[in-house]
């Protein structure tokens, strides 16, 4: 088992190739639900949860169903359907058996179906040629990166709230400018992870 390799995958998915801030996946929830810390946390926990489950299901489907039957071109259709069905299923199961978790994550689950970060991570796992364990680690790292970006950004936005902003920048524009600066800070991680284990 290559722990070092897995750690590199985990950390680079979370920091260097951060899904929101450098790959631009999942911008909608990033801008929409990051206003308050609680909702940012709830949303990102739901994303981590769905990403892990989606990877655990789509990876075997790709490797044991699509590839042996030469149906790789169906990847997009199959993945989006599986994710959509899965999210519904998870919601029903949570509601029935773990109502406490459903209460905190439930409201965010339907919003995740059409979240490009989830579909993105499942496709990227296949494209990068990861094995099952690496895929799961990559999904976890991506989810954690999303969590980090959301939590950091909700802090930034709460500071923005009281500040005096030019009229035409109020609302979305200033949020995007703040996102640019947050994203700038993540550029600093480039090259750090590889050298960490050298």
């Amino acid at each position: 088992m290559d722990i070092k390799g897995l750690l590199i995958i985990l950390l680079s998915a979370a920091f260097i190739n951060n899904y929101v801030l450098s790959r631009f996946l999942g911008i909608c929830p990033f801008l929409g639900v990051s206003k308050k810390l609680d909702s940012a946390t709830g949303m990102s926990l739901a994303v981590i949860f769905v990403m892990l489950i989606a990877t655990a299901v789509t990876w075997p489907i790709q490797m044991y169903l699509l590839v042996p039957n030469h149906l790789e071109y169906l990847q997009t259709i199959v993945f989006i359907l599986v994710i959509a069905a899965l999210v519904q299923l998870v919601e029903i199961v949570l509601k029935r058996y773990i109502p406490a978790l459903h209460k905190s994550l439930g409201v965010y689950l339907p919003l995740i179906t059409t979240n490009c970060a989830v579909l993105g991570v499942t496709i990227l796992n296949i494209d990068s040629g990861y094995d099952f364990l690496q895929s799961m680690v990559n999904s976890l790292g991506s989810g954690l990166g999303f969590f980090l970006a959301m939590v950091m950004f909700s802090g930034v936005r709460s500071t923005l709230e009281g500040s005096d902003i030019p009229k035409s920048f109020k609302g979305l524009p200033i949020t995007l400018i703040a996102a640019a600066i947050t994203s700038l800070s993540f550029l600093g991680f480039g090259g750090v992870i590889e050298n960490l284990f050298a």
Partner: protein
Amino acid sequence: MNTLQNFSKGLIKENPVLVLVLGTCPTLATSTSVSGALGMGAAATVVLLCSNIVISALRKVIPDKVRIPCYIVLIAGFVTMVQMLVKAFAPALDETLGIYLPLIVVNCIILGRAEMFANKNKVFDSAVDALGMGAGFTLALTLMATIREVFGNGTFFGISIPILSDNHISILTMAPGGFFVFGLLIAAVNKWGKHKPKKKDFGCEGCPNADSCSQKSCEAVNQEVTA
């Protein structure tokens, strides 16, 4: 509403990117070069056109309760077709767009137009609407890509521009530049746009999926956000 108005509303008045703020992910990600932006715009327009026509034609056949899954399957089918065509005839574009090509499936604009327009209107009107929205998407993407490529890379369409290519601001082609330019463009629209921005903020109310993804959840999130 006549055909021309139907077409032109997507370009300026209801521009999907700059006014409705939909499809932000591909906008930010593929606007680093003008050629990539045009390719993305064209691919999304083709998918939007096909899905709008088919969904409009099938609007009386698809049961209301399962319409969203039906739309997603149709859209995913067209995306797969476009993906295969691009891979076969424009491998360079496939390389540039990468993961964002299959991700057209989850582009809000396409599902949004299906939900807001195609399932209520005739086939021809839906096709015109799709062309207008697709053109508006491409226009906004190209505008952003022009700014980012000219100032960030000193080139336009890969051709280098004399003075700018020696003094380029490379940060504009990187991730932060995308957010920054997009923010500036929306601020410009707010400033010079004819009508006041309807949306003060970004939330579920702007998302066309809000009705379909079970609005209760959106409302709950919004309440939590505004509370």
